[in-house]
């Protein structure tokens, strides 16, 4: 067979609970948006809990090539922009042990 007799494909995004993000779960062939939703429901919402589905024509999606994955890598140490990059509690504890801090006693204190 030299031609594709299938309908175009639609990507399916599934929402398990109201308020959750929609998550991509797969795709279906369908002649139009309405049929895509019906087929997506049959395929992806038969058992798994579902409150809402989105369908998007596959051709509407634009992707970055995986070859470019290195653009997501940090060229240098970026721990300065992460909460785990700071050990503040340890610093406070160490400063207290060395008596470098002078806590004001207050009768309402801890």
């Amino acid at each position, binding site marked *: 067979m030299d031609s594709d007799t299938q309908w175009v494909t639609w990507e399916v995004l599934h929402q398990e609970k109201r308020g959750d993000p929609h998550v991509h779960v797969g795709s279906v062939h369908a002649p139009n948006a309405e049929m895509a939703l019906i087929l997506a429901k049959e395929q992806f919402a038969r058992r798994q809990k579902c409150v809402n589905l989105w369908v998007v024509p596959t051709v509407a999606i634009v992707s970055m090539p995986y070859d470019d994955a290195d653009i997501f890598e940090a060229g240098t140490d970026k721990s300065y*922009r992460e909460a785990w990059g700071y050990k503040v509690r340890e610093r406070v504890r160490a400063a207290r042990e060395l008596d470098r801090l002078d806590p004001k006693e207050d009768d309402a204190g801890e």
Partner: protein
Amino acid sequence: MTLMNPLVRPVITDDDGRSEDEKLVTFEARVAAGEKIEPTDWMPDRYRQQLIRMVQNHGNSEIVGALPEREWIPHAPTFKRKLALTAKVQDEVGHAQLLYRVVETLGKPREVIIEELLNGTAKYSNVFNYPPETWADVGIIAWLIDAAAIIRQMLLREGSYGPYSRALKRICYEESFHLKHGHDICVTLATGTQFQRDMLQDALNRWWNPIVGFFGPPDRASVHTDELMRWRVKLKTNDAIRQQFFDQYVPRIWELGLSIPDPELRKDDESGRWLYTEPDWEEFKRVIKGHGPCNAERIAVRRLAHEEGEWVRRALAAAANDQAVPVQ
């Protein structure tokens, strides 16, 4: 089956023959059950207006809040601090983009949001109308104002409007680095020379009142609180959040050997509540209305940035006419 775009509010679907009262009952039942409200759902007009006001204010605060901090990037004392402060400023501006998108889902166009900030009619957090005078101010702002913001945003994350709630998940994650970085700056100064300690104490003295005021006027002055709490637009009252902040942060401030410039501040053993001196709410109102030390400067800088960014908007508009087709 009704087909719809999930992000664009349909004009006609509200008209399902039910009265406003019936719709309100369903809406309130859903909110009470912990469900999220999405842009295409029916919602009371006061809910929509209040969310627009609140999220727009929040977005503006992220933009304007980045301005005082940005002034200090060239003066950061070490290269690591400079990188961290730059990253924080970048985060805040990114948060504004997320929040403006949320406001758009409620029906207010971005152009209007931007224009209202530029022409001075939009509000933002009052605390950013004060000047950061020393490097210690940068530490106090990043530690305590971001702490105050995180406490409020962690609550709002559990609110009823889906797009706002989802945006706040990411925002809270990023803010946690801001807080740590600010705390780290304060610990460095608190364990440093006498000059550095004095500088830190001086910063706290100047910022304490604006920080206490950050949570907004006392509950007795709020009129719509009950309704907003029922609709989960507010999760706790201003006073309750202020108390939570005192509980979490007063001990940590004392721990660094700092004095809080309020002789009345103490925890009442019987009620378990913090007693404190009310900030001057008249001054608070005066500053909100545009008469604070930095209001004019903040808007002027924002306007300059907007004008200087004109070429970027033009270039993007040109790119929109030159759409690339995805590879099939």
